[in-house]
């Protein structure tokens, strides 16, 4: 029988399904109930979501890394290799 009260360990296990979808309604309800009463899991869930969001933002704006501009010789090599005769 499925247990009715989830522990923090259970919440960690279900976190990916909670965030990405793919969880039964009952488990979602149990997960939510635990998160409402457990401040550690509540904070952890927020940090988990924030981590995903931050990773996306870094990839969406890669302009602050060195090598942001195409080197001239590479550009010329690409153009030479794709030039239609």
């Amino acid at each position, binding site marked *: 029988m499925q247990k009715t009260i989830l522990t*923090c360990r259970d919440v960690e296990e279900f976190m*990916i399904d909670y965030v990405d979808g793919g969880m039964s309604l009952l488990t979602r309800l149990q997960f939510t109930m635990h998160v409402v009463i457990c*401040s*550690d899991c509540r904070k*952890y869930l927020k940090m988990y979501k*924030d981590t995903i969001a*931050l*990773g996306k933002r*870094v990839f969406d704006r890669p302009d602050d890394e060195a090598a942001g501009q195409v080197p001239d010789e590479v550009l010329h090599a*690409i153009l030479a290799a794709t030039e239609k005769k």
Partner: protein
Amino acid sequence: MTSDEDELVEGIRKGDTRSCNTLVKTYWADLNFLARRIIGSPDEADDITQDAFINAIKHIDTFENRGNLRAWLRKIVTNQALMALRKKKALKEDSLDDLMLQFDDSGHHLNHFTERPANLDVLAESSQVRERIRQAIDNLPDNYRLTLILRDIQGYTTREVADMTHTTEKNVKVRLHRARLALRNLLGAAFRDTY
């Protein structure tokens, strides 16, 4: 697709050098950044990105105009980088156990979280935090890093990632969850410092 992209793609199809030039200059940073995260080495990433652009321009006819040009280019560079990574070495499956959460015998958190809620906009604007995120992603073991990039950044489905990395969907979910937790823990200091 925007009308500018429409025009760009049309120019490349006609063999217009200026359009090819614009394509490379517009998307180089984005694709090179992605290749670097996957392959690790800047020099190899440059080669992969170069080959990806050559392939993209040569096969521009396979691009559907209704699609997203950046996503299409990212897919090409991802495939090139994955091939290069497989050629180079067997993908490392190092353990991330040290970075996982700890629980007591009753299943409750062993450590309590003292961080206050993050302001994502502030964090994302900090070049120090951005650099730390890049380093944290780079330091993940190969299979975890790849799974995180393909699923969270590229937006491939769990099934697609399983196919691309030759594993099961269940394994993708395990790797993704562990990669996110590890990334969060590697970023712990950033979360603490910026509140």
